[in-house]
């Protein structure tokens, strides 16, 4: 019998949904257990940091890393796992492009601390106590991880071999990825394991030439289930988002939120989407363009919902180029 796959699963700045998604593979989880030894999975089993540090370089075959990098601890572990893994996989939108935590880059640590430790209605913090990395406890000096000023995607911190997109990845996507690994049927490094083109490619809604006369939010209308959502004024991220999610949102009459990240030829998901949408606004002069644009509630948050940390503006390798 071939040796079993040594599999590590780790989470950083994430909600836990990616881990749950792995469990969501239902009975296939058993196949996974069959094919692999899970050597690390903090959400499901008990592990200590030293367990990681004890592992030899290359002793992990595959590391499914979910979550973005937000603290020094997450960076540290990402590097430790990278050093020990043959394949490092950015698992889920947060690891791949920063995901929802990445939206924190619209502001900075200072502002976030102000909100959390001072401004929210339920906070009483008269001494203005803020998290500190050093704490002189009775047992000696204690250290806490430091929160960075911005959120990084996994590949801005360590080299990543494959990307498994989604918030979270669908069971099908996960299974495709695992199958590829187990069978050794691997695409070139750097590949995102999902579709290539955009969601529109497989979207069955009826499409025509597009014109947007008014921006609508999903709660404002009940969309016609047969027609392209963009044409109905809903901001659907489908045109710039990688196919492969199985149309979970659009099948439920909701516009695509973009969690499968940019499609193959798109370098900046948000910029491309913003531009595509702006181009089809049905206005002909500057004034009406201003007016229509102003009715779009939160452009950056919408177009970069999952990929802000990887926007060209933020896309630096941590530690310089």
């Amino acid at each position, binding site marked *: 019998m071939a040796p079993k796959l040594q599999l590590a699963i780790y989470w950083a700045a994430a909600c836990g949904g990616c881990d749950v998604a792995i469990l969501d593979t239902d009975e296939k989880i058993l196949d996974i257990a069959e094919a692999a030894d899970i050597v690390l999975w903090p959400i499901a089993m008990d592990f200590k940091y030293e367990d990681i540090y004890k592992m030899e370089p290359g002793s992990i075959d595959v590391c499914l890393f979910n979550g973005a990098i937000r603290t020094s601890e997450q960076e540290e572990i990402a590097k430790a796992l990278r050093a020990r893994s043959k394949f490092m996989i950015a698992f889920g939108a947060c690891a791949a492009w920063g995901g929802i935590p990445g939206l924190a880059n619209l502001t900075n640590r200072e502002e976030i601390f102000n909100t959390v430790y001072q401004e929210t209605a339920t906070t009483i913090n008269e001494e203005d106590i803020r998290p500190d990395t050093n704490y002189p406890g009775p047992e000696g000096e204690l250290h806490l991880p430091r929160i960075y000023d911005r959120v990084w995607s996994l590949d801005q911190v360590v080299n990543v071999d494959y990307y498994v997109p989604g918030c979270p990845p669908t069971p099908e996507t996960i299974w495709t990825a695992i199958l590829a690994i187990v069978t050794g049927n691997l695409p070139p490094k750097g590949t995102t394991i999902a579709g290539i*083109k*955009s*969601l*529109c*490619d497989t979207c069955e809604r009826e*499409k*025509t*030439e*597009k*014109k947007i006369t008014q921006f609508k939010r999903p709660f404002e209308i009940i969309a016609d289930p047969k027609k392209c959502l963009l044409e109905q004024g809903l901001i659907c991220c*489908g*045109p*710039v988002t990688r*196919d492969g999610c199985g149309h979970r949102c659009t099948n439920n009459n909701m516009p695509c939120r973009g969690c499968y990240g940019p*499609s*193959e*030829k*798109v*370098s900046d998901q948000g910029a*491309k*989407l913003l*531009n*595509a949408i702006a*181009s*089809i606004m049905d206005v002909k002069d500057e004034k009406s363009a201003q007016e229509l644009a102003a009715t779009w509630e939160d452009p950056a948050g919408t177009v970069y919902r999952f990929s802000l940390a990887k926007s060209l503006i933020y896309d630096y390798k941590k530690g310089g180029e």
Partner: protein
Amino acid sequence: MSDHKIGVYVCHCGSNINGVVNCAKVTEEIGKLGEVVVAKDYKYMCSDPGQEMIKNDIREKGLDRVVVAACSPRMHEPTFRRALEGAGLNGYLLEMANIREHVSWVTKDKEEATKKALSLVKGAVKRVKLHEPIEEREVPVTNTTLVLGGGISGIQAALQVAEAGHKVYLIEQKQYIGGNMAKFDKTFPTLDCAACILTPKMVDVGQSPNIELYTSSEVIKVDGYVGNFTVTVREKPRYINHDKCTGCGDCASACIMKNRIPHEFDEGLSKRSAAYIPFPQAVPLKAVIDDENCLLLTRKKCTLACVKACGAKAINFNQHETIHEFKVGSIILATGFDLFDAKRSPQYGYGKYPNVINGLQFERMTNASGPTSGHITLADGTEPKSVAVIHCVGSRDENYNKYCSRVCCMSSVKFAHLVKDHCDAEVYEFYIDMRTFGKGYEEFYNRVQEEGVHFIRGKGAEVAQKDGRLVVKAEDTLLGQYREIPVDMVILNTALEPRVDAEKVAQTLGISRSGDGFFMESHIKLDPVTTTTDGIYLAGCCQSPKDIPDSVAQGSAAAAQSLAIIATGKVKISPISASIDSEQCAGCQICIGLCTYRAIKLNEETLRAEINEAVCKGCGTCAAGCPSGAIKVSHFNDDQLLAQIEGVLA
């Protein structure tokens, strides 16, 4: 990807570039970049030896990419492309860095200029690596020409193309051709009778088998490109059957609106009917019914006196506008000028004092077939004893037009002579400078000076009324004296301005206008006849104010351009165009509405968008809009632009 062999050539342009940019240093720095195998600077890169140098290096050193840092690519890109092609390299493997117009000519500090030049060249080097060879596209040419505007310049152009044996569509907005010149009596400097020299040409136009004349017509749409324009023309109804009308004018005499409508051709100095013949020598010599004043057409009620009077039964009130479509290879614009409205300078009392008139009104007055049968008369019918001519009204004036209208000095001198000739009154000319630059012009001026005309150097400041007479107030700058001169009549020689509809015409044809509002030529010195749009040429006053000799010369030049295209039989069109990678296209159809030219269609079978490259103009708007990154515009694709941006900011 294997390494490229790039040659970089930095031009001094004499001292134009090298005087500010340290060309040697730029060359040295660039020579250090990877893949740059030669970097040279030279005095005049565009000269023969300069081009030879590039060609030799391509042949001997096996260069596969070339960067020329010199003047604007709008100037010499074609030159250097040809040089590359001469050495067997595709012309699009060239990139130019504009270190003259964008650097040395606009920067004072030498160090900054050198730094900026270096960045631009770096950008060019990065970009050129990603260039791909592109084949020029050649299309056959339609051997017809459209001339817009039937003034003297348009007539000249039309006749010349027609004489060479090619078809011309001459489109005129008014009901007759001849333009402004048709209104004159005499023309400077030789005092030829305008009608004697213009009428035969107008008749030729009417009779030429190669000219199709459309009056009362305007261009409403222009599609296509050089060699292959499609022009849509709207012809307004004249309510006269041209085939039947004999031009006798019986309708005009019968019309019950007779002598009630100010006559435009006479600049309002006479009154006409609603059915009328514009003027006795008009081509075409046909009646026209003016739909703004005809009672039947405006109020649906009339005795129809004209219909009864017309023996030829030529009147037809059921005419409608007609839309024509012409396929032409080139377009000659000869739409002329408008006269500055003297009411805009209220200090001269135009419109307030009846004896203050403008130049065209004076022209009509002196014309033997004009409203006063050639007599110079005041409003009360008597002859003036003294006349003032004020130059530069609306010209050379910060408040109106900064430019000199070029013809006014000479026509003012002509007016003085005509006054002397017709009624021997005293004439006072108020001028800023006398500009008599043309052949025979200074001589004419001398002759009129000898006729006893008073030339007062100073711009007429104001015209007032005192004791029932007009008074011109002016500072005589030669005498250093303020003067008030009483006269009976004042002629305001007003500016020649761009036509009111110049903006609309520019838009319809897709050409530019210069700061003064006249249509813009490609190059003010070296290419004053072509526009920046291939296949559209300029003639006469629509490009800038000019006299008849210059208008005629430019008309001929424009005709030569049209004929040159026809003679070649083929034109090169920009090979820059967009294409869609169907492997990437997701069929979202965002691009389809973005293309003005409707070059993009959805393939109903594959559900992928496709571009018709023959229709595509290569603007790249669709490529910017495609969310899938599936559209690539040649020579301006993402990678090339991104590389250049990276380079210039490095």
